[in-house]
């Protein structure tokens, strides 16, 4: 029956996915993959929200997830637009080349 998996299992998987997302942000150079890693982190936070909501027997967790998804969609749209104009200016999207502010 549903609901027989303990909360701690979900929290462990959520923490693991969050760590992998942060690792992706730290080691990858492609800004598109960095963005995907950020999505992975948001997603793992959503999983923790839903798991806690089920444990506390409230729906607020799921409604928060809806809001997080909306903000993530907005963030992806603006972020990808930024990547597109950076590509237009520098003809590359390597994060190591984005050092225009360096003195």
């Amino acid at each position, binding site marked *: 029956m*549903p*609901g*027989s*998996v303990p*909360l*701690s*299992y979900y*929290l462990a*998987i959520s*923490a*693991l*996915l969050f*760590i*992998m*997302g*942060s*690792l*992706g942000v*730290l*080691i990858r150079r*492609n800004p*598109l993959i960095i963005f*995907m890693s950020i*999505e*992975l982190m948001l*997603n793992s936070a*959503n*999983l923790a929200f*839903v798991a*806690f909501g089920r*444990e*506390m*027997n*409230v*729906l*607020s967790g*799921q409604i928060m*997830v*809806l*809001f997080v*998804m*909306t*903000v*993530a*969609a*907005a963030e*992806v*749209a*603006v972020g*990808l*637009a930024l*990547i*597109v*104009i950076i*590509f237009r200016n520098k003809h*590359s*999207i*390597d994060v*190591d*080349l984005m050092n225009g502010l360096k003195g």
Partner: protein
Amino acid sequence: MNLTLILFFVLAVVAVASAAGLLISRNAVYAALFLVLNFASVAVFYLLLGAPFIALAQVTVYAGAIMVLFLFVIMLLGGEKLPRTYILPWQRPTAIGLAAVLFVEAGFLLFQRLQLSANLANPIAAVNTTEYLQIFSEQLFNQYLLPFEVTSIVLLVAMIGTIVLTKKVKGEEA
């Protein structure tokens, strides 16, 4: 070991493996497809947790809309593979060390303070899907009406921002 637990572990393996695939694949298109797989497995987690609406929103919004946008931009820019530039020798070990520290911290916080008191005032545990959707929408449009309206403004601002950012300025060489 019951069936739900087996399903959970299979999904956990799929989720972690696809996240690892996202981390190590050199090609951005493969990384995006690994992320779609990860989103799909998380959607099944939501179903296991009794959140069918969130599961379907996950599939349509994340795995559908957002990932299509990602793939579109990857192919538009030709950013599948970046040529290797210089490599910082300390970057990867440092990152892995920091991630391990974060993992220990997260585990400590989550499991040290995990003393939940089940709130039984609003039982949603044993309802069917129709009742679930009714309770969900009642809460969303009563208690959370203001945040719901604010998200519409967030989306509007994102839309305008995207258009303004990518619009070509007149006379500018593009």
